[in-house]
């Protein structure tokens, strides 16, 4: 594969009003590229693995920035940086799992410019795909990762359908654990999408990671008050502590009722193309007190139905151990 030292020619738009960005996104459709912090963008373009006629830089739009308290929780603009999320006192007080997840994204330099929206909609890290091979996700007819010689240590154990890529987003798992609502805006208006349906499995959307349509912009994320101040846990296991993607991560939210778990969300990252809710674990937790015994009792449920690939069987005990740790040490 040829390598390039410079970026290709791309038109750059820097709108300052959301309406202008929406009009551009509508006009350009799939020929346009929405730019947040750019940390996932520039590599694609520099390698010529993806091309776009124009980039729409969203960072100059004031309405997309900031963390606001609303009648039903908190709204976070999609262009808010990960650093701002990590340091926000309101989020740390009420939804600590999100700052904890954001704090584990990449490195401080990347968190300074990386945006929440960009982190949520970033593309998968499957290197066959990112290298520009004509795999299923790139519109081709096969999966290089799930083949006898395929290197699939980082790939999925759940939800495969031809493609075995995983979502690399750390904040996505927290969003699903918090029952967040994603606000997708287009020239036709707003569309509210529950986080659980925002991320897309390959069985329905094999060439994209989310259900955002061309012309739509993720403008905000809403965290419902229903989970404010509950007990949370986030942990990410990666090969390196800094500047690496999760092999497996876990985001959990526990609503305690008299010392026992009334409702729970337990979500794993790095195991599917979407943040993967461990619904059997969540059901089994109802009525139990958090602790090591409960963790031990439910851990095996985390991997029920998993289909590991040649080189990622290690993710199964990792998932089970993260469930044990989440129940042993919820914040």
């Amino acid at each position, binding site marked *: *594969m*040829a390598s390039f030292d410079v970026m290709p020619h791309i038109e750059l738009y820097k709108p300052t009003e959301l309406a202008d960005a929406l009009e551009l996104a509508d006009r350009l459709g799939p020929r346009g590229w929405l730019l947040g912090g750019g940390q996932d963008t520039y590599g694609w373009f520099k390698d010529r693995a993806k091309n776009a006629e124009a980039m729409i830089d969203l960072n100059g739009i004031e309405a997309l920035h900031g963390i606001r308290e609303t009648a039903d929780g908190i709204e976070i603009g999609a262009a808010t940086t990960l650093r701002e999320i990590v340091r926000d006192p309101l989020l740390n007080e009420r939804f600590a799992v999100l700052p904890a997840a954001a704090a584990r994204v990449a490195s401080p330099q990347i968190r300074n410019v990386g945006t929440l929206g960009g982190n949520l909609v970033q593309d998968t890290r499957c290197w066959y795909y990112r*290298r*520009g*091979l*004509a795999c299923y996700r*790139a*519109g*081709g*007819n*096969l*999966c*290089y990762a*799930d*083949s*006898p010689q*395929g290197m699939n240590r980082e790939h999925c154990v759940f939800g*495969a*359908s*031809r493609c075995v890529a995983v979502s690399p987003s750390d904040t996505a798992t927290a969003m699903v654990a918090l029952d967040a609502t994603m606000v997708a805006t287009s020239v036709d208006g707003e569309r509210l999408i529950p986080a659980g349906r925002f991320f897309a*499995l390959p*069985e*329905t*959307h094999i060439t994209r990671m989310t259900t955002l349509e061309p012309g739509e912009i993720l403008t905000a994320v809403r965290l419902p008050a229903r989970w404010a101040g509950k007990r949370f846990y986030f942990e990410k296991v990666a090969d390196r502590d800094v500047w690496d993607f999760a092999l497996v991560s876990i985001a959990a939210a526990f609503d305690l009722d008299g010392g026992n778990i009334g409702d729970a969300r337990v979500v794993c990252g790095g195991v599917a193309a979407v943040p993967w809710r461990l619904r059997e674990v969540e059901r089994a937790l109802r009525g139990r007190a958090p602790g090591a015994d409960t963790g031990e009792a439910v851990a095996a449920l985390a991997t029920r139905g998993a*289909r590991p690939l040649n080189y990622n069987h290690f993710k199964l005990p990792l998932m089970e151990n993260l469930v044990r740790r989440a129940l042993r040490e919820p914040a």
Partner: protein
Amino acid sequence: MNIAEFKRDVWGREVLLGVSWDLLWVIVALSFAFIALHAIGMAVLGRRGPKPSSDGPRVARHAAVDRAFHWIMAVSVFVLLVTGVLPIIGIEFAWLTIHWIAGLVLTVVVLFHIVRSLFWLDLKSMWIAPRDLKEPFDSSVKPGKYSLAQKSMHAAVTVLSLLVIGSGLVMFAMIDTPWWNRTNALSESTLGWVFFIHGLSTLLLIATISLHVYFGLRPEKLFYLRSMIKGWVSRDELEAHHDSSRWSAGESN
């Protein structure tokens, strides 16, 4: 407009991906145009004679098992087209499992039909013979059990079904199923050809089936549809449209 889609791989080589789905709209437009022109032509120029009666003695045309085959095949092809084409035109849903289950149903019933045709049915009644070619030009030449149009339709559906089933089975081996894990053993270019054959035969099936449904619903041919549901035509219908000397049909209850 291209017939096939290609992608340039990371080594700069052109790789065949499959059929160009832009052709779908061409096929739909051509099919619709043909149907509209035929319907208008028949309304303006069509000969209107006395309609044969459906009363009176009945003649068995299709056994129950063959009618069951026809309708099971029809349903499975419909499901295959819906699950195969809708995601391509932007209506995305979890289609793959439904698609391959319907494909397996189609494969089984087609195999059954082949075996039954070879050993239990009159295979020659569906073959196109030289004298059949006179039918469109000489109104005194009546067909045996099947008209030239019906035989042609059957031949087209046979070829296209076998192509779509054959290529579909190769693709089936390339995905995970309850019985095996995929091997991904075929090269990109081989898979490209398989996807091309599958896609092209699907497009041609859409045209063929559109015509089949249209002709099946035409007023003067509704008795064929009834025979595919109930199994019989009347003696009067048989005499009007067929040469009974070339079709030794038995009386039916």
